[in-house]
């Protein structure tokens, strides 16, 4: 007997659609409407009482003033650096942790711990670690004769220091995703390759790497978008200082809001939204195209 899928009758369709309405209402009210109204308000100077249309002024100010423009620059740096390190280091760690060692379970749990600690706590702890005189990092370095490093106050490396702490915390999730991907590789491929005489590097390059593409893409997209929108870690460690050196778009937005410059803050949010979208969508489209499904 042939099996045909039933085409839903009209009543069923209406029933299903009605069930979606509560969720749709909430989504529209809490997400869609504020997003579009913020696009509108970014072109105004507004207070809680009234608003005044000023066109592109907020955006011009954002890119003209060094204290604001640096937010854009730092956000891009931060997003790409943390993403890059996470994608590469987590893969390396995941490979290590799928070798079949005895301690594997314990090590995997250990790797994952930083992720479950509150980001603010991580930030504050590392801030005290990185104190130039009293922090343990510099004290440990001095045992090897290395002089004081101004981790969080030297213009050249401050942003990088914060990024490294972010990587430290984010490695857990990324590694776990890679491990899941690696474990999903059908072992017959590996066996076949071994029989054909492939060495470790060739097995990695031609089997592992292509087959974990989905996991790698997830890690890439998640770290990139997460990194571009980071706030808590930077706020806990430097509050965007010293001066404006480690300001990200998010901290700039917060500071403008806290100081009552609501229009500027809204404009910043729109810029952040556009930035993340303009980066995330093409990256997503590009990498998923290369995904191979076996």
């Amino acid at each position, binding site marked *: 007997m042939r099996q045909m899928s039933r085409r839903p009758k009209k009543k069923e369709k209406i029933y299903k659609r009605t069930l979606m309405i509560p969720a749709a209402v909430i989504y529209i009210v809490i997400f869609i409407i504020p997003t579009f109204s913020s696009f509108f308000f970014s072109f105004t*100077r507004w*207070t*809680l*009482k009234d608003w005044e249309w000023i066109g592109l002024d907020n955006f011009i*100010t954002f890119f003209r*003033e060094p*204290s604001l423009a640096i937010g854009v620059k730092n956000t891009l740096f931060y997003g790409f650096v943390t993403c890059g390190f996470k994608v590469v280091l987590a893969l390396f760690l995941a490979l290590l942790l799928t070798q079949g060692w005895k301690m594997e379970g314990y090590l995997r749990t250990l790797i994952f711990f930083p992720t479950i600690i509150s980001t603010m706590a991580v930030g504050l702890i590392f801030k005290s670690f990185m*104190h*130039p*005189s009293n922090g343990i990092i510099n004290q440990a370095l001095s045992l090897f004769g290395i002089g*004081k490093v*101004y981790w*969080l*106050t030297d*213009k050249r490396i401050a942003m990088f220091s914060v990024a490294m702490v972010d990587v430290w915390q984010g490695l857990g999730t990324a590694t776990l995703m890679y491990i899941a991907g690696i474990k999903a590789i059908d072992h017959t491929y590996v066996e076949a390759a071994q029989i054909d005489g492939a060495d470790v590097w060739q097995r990695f390059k031609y089997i592992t790497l292509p087959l974990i593409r989905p996991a790698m893409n997830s890690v890439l997209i998640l770290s990139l978008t997460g990194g571009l929108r980071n706030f808590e870690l930077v706020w806990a460690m430097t*509050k*965007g*200082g*010293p*001066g*404006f*050196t480690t300001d990200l778009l998010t901290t700039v937005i917060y*500071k*403008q809001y*806290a*100081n*009552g*410059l609501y229009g*500027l803050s809204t404009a910043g949010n729109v810029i952040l939204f556009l930035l993340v979208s303009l980066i995330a969508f093409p990256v997503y489209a590009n990498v998923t195209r290369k995904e191979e499904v076996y």
Partner: protein
Amino acid sequence: MKKRLAAAVVMSAVLTVTAAGCGTGTKPAPANPAQKTDGEKGGDAGETGGELSILAPSDAVNEGTYAIIEAFEQKYNIKVSLELSPNDDVLVSRAATGDLGDIVDWHSGSLMLNLGPSDNLMDITNEKYVDRINETYLGCVTSDGKIYGVPTSPTYAGGIFYNKQIYQELKLEIPKTWDEFLENCRACKAAGYEGLIGTYGDPWTSQLLLLSDFYYVNKEDPDFASDYTAGKVVLSDSPAYVKSVEKLASQKEVFNEDFLSTTNDDGWRMMCEGAGGHLVSRTREYVRALEDYPEAEDFIGYFAVPGQDENNMGATIWMPHGYYIAANAKNVENAKLWQEFVTTEEAVKLYAEKASPMGAFMIKDIDLGDNIRPAIQDTMTYADDGRISAAMEFLCPVKGTNMQQICVQIGSGEITAEEGVKALHEDNKKSAEQLDLEGWK
């Protein structure tokens, strides 16, 4: 079976610990001795009764405040609940959403406008107790012709705190010009002490030198503040202001090594432990630091930021915070009673007893008694000679929001003094536009 039991035990242990952890610490920091006293204490009981809620930044209250609260509770049989907030921004949001309770403790001067007084605060222009308040202060809690606040505490002065013992040891004298001051700093540094303790780990302290130097700007041109408000001049039009910024830039050579990471608390600790020669701060922070290091009282002194002219050294004073009544306060009568009580000699004396005053009170006809710390007495000599000026934020509503970060940039040498003056003005422009000031558009 055993496995199941073990799992159940572990689960319940985890849940209990988590629940216990969640239960505490979610309420805002409760005060205080004030909450322990109950309305049943008798005293002049029977008079009023009821409740009063006070919302304050956590660094604004001290032993003196608690003493006043306790006395108020006993006198009027009103239960006071004090809520402390560690963050200024939160209070601004709460004002905007009408969630201030009855009384809020907040800045006076230009920062008062952040609370939106005409919408969120109650007008007390016609209350009797307003007559007891010093006119200069009233000018700082007035907006659009309406008065809103009463002073919470004494005024405080900004300037340089120095270590008397180190001065004695190195045979230094109180500097009369800025260059002499830098000389003294270098001498301290050469002797192994910190020349000047910088606390840029807390960025807001970076502005203190600039703000405490306003006496010279005001002296050079008494109209500068009002001209600036009207948008008629820019910052670089005041040579004294430019000089103030240059002073900021000249600190770097005598700062301690880790000045960018040293916090305000760290800095005061170093000062009270005798490790540093000088620290730029205000008597408000001084009084708080001494609560932890009372012995330091003997060797910490004060002098105003020196200018160019050795015969004309003057101090810049900050007006105290104000107690304001929320526009939608529930216990309006009690709130007014509180405002009135705070302006009586009785309350002021209680405050002065517990929290040795950081300067003169803004209430008329008060006799302060003897409990005044040495450094504060140093500040009063300036007041007695008339060599004082209110800080700029009390004479001009324009204060840029990024001032602290720009001052950090100037003080750490990231930008030059000239660039700093320009940056400060650009920053002020944004605030002026937001405040809708004429002459700035």
